[in-house]
């Protein structure tokens, strides 16, 4: 007999894992919308944020102090990246920008480890227990992460709707040249976006860090975010959320129900195949703008 309870358990677990992927994907989307760059360094920024936070705490800083200091560091980092990497490369083809962010990820990874060492760290944010609803296991930590992701998106929505910077961001995302024509200053918008991406990296870094421990492999979580981006569209925050949920659910269900017939371990590519299948029907993802674009 089909075990519905187990199915639901896997499904919920998958959806909640998906939220974690979305958290990383949102950082990509923000930057892609504003400047058309697939920012591969997002993972490195995540690592840098989490490592900075944990190292500060281990050196005796109080939690709020460490959080504020890390936040400040990430803002400075975001601004520095915009200034030294993005601005000089303005108007270059996307692939060039992509390569630059790869170089950037080397710099950030190296700097993070040079600064704080190669040791691995634990990160306990104090929420780890689980509870059962009708025999279905639910993790409180995952719910917390989902709530954080949800509020993050809500804050962004408000920010983009009601603040001046947010509005100019949307204008830039819609049409860079038109935005320029009406006198918006692109560098300022980019600086704002990279700052926000730094903050997203901090949130993602802390949540993923609490799950994985804070160590080098944190930067690998970008690979989980890429199929989410393809599925949801590179330029849609809503897409990142929905894409994350879909990828999480498909991955887990496939691993549990389809995996055994292949001997398991299909999680790494099944998300990509699912994303590809969708793309063949909708070439710009679920929520992406339909554009004839060239790289």
């Amino acid at each position: 007999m089909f075990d519905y309870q187990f199915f639901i358990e896997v499904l919920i677990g998958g959806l909640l894992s998906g939220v974690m992927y979305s958290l990383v994907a949102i950082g990509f989307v923000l930057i892609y919308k504003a400047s058309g760059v697939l920012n591969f360094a997002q993972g490195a920024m995540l690592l840098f944020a989490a490592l900075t936070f944990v190292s500060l705490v281990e050196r005796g800083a109080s939690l709020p102090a460490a959080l504020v200091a890390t936040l400040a560091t990430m803002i400075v980092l975001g601004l520095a990246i915009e200034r030294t990497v993005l601005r000089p490369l303005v108007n270059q083809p996307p692939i060039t920008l992509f390569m630059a962010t790869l170089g950037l990820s080397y710099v950030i990874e190296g700097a993070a480890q040079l600064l704080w060492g190669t040791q691995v760290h634990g990160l306990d944010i104090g929420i780890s227990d689980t509870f059962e609803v009708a025999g279905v296991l639910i993790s409180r930590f995952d719910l917390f992460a989902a709530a954080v992701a949800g509020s993050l998106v809500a804050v962004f929505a408000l920010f983009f709707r009601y603040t001046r910077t947010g509005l100019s961001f949307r204008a830039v995302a819609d049409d860079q040249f038109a935005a320029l024509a009406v006198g918006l200053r692109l560098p300022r918008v980019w600086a704002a976006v990279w700052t926000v991406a730094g903050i997203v990296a901090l949130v993602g870094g802390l949540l993923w860090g609490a799950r994985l421990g804070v160590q080098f492999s944190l930067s690998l979580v970008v690979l989980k975010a890429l199929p989410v981006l393809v599925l949801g569209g590179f330029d849609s925050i809503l897409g990142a959320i929905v894409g994350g949920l879909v990828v999480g659910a498909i991955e887990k269900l496939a691993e549990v129900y389809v995996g055994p017939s292949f001997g398991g371990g299909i999680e790494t590519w099944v998300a990509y195949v699912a994303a590809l299948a969708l793309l063949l029907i909708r070439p710009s993802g679920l929520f992406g703008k339909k554009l004839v674009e060239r790289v």
Partner: protein
Amino acid sequence: MAIPASSKSSCPSAETLWGAIVLMVAYGVVPFVGSDYLLDAVLTPFLALALAAVGLNVLTGYTGQVSLGSAAFLAVGAYAAYNLHLRIPSLPLLIDLVLAGGIAAAVGILFGLPSLRLRGFYLAVSTLTAQFFVQWALTKFGWFSNDNPSGVIDAPVLTIAGISFTNAAERYVFSLTIVVISTLLTLRLLRSQSGRNFIAVRDHEVAAKVIGVPLLRTKLLAFGISSFLIGVAGVLWAFAYLRTVEPAGFNLDRSFQILFIIIIIGGLGSLRGSFIGAAFIVVFPLLLSRVGAALLGSVFDSGILEMSQRIVIGALIIGFLIAEPRGLIALWDRTWSTLWSARRTAAPTCSLTQRSLQ
């Protein structure tokens, strides 16, 4: 992205001449004076990577389709050649090599199918499917590695027509020959109608379609040729260089490495750039770590040095892209043409120079 076709040197015959000189040195001098270290640890991987870069250049530089899955095709080539050699021992190695390239090409065409509908980063990310699927399949199915408990394959001795290539110099000559032949054939192809179709698709897909370039065939041909060359490079990597291979060696970092070669240094759409880029990517990190250790080894421990090198390499990548987004080769070409025109005033025509040298 509109990249001008590689600016042909004002004097093609001079280019041929230089090519001949490089080849003469590569065949006539290097194998005899090069140390084992130089041949085995520097030149052989350089040749394999250069060929892979040539392959990716056909796809990305000439046809404009970005791929992040090159390492997967390296792996397909390596494992295909291994299995052909193992299971059909009567096949000569050269046939193995060509068939392995063919298998890589078939896999490449399969994974190139999405390119018919996808553009830009969507296509780039979708090529990651190849990257992860191939690695998974090679690990998963023991058959590919002849059920070796640890999944690692040992390369056979390179033998062609009874001649074994066993020492470093011989393996180098073997790789060199394969790379030279493949590159020359690629060059020929790029100068044919197919090559012009590639460039048409890259520069303006819609326009290409309008003037009657068969998009489907052109794109898939590009994926096929590219994967063929990368597959052959994979055979060299596995058989001539490492002589043992595990799937983990063909990870995403390797794909990025090849992309670096053609984009940052080599310049898209320049075969010569692929070679210079590969040389750079192989030699530069070695040089950096040796010089770093020699100058600062007594001051800092090796961990700090290695981390700093990572930062330096990353910063250089960014710096290069800012200095010359079309690749360092463009910088080189500019310097070169200044130099050449300066010389030309002294020696009136290329043909004269060439004749006087013959």
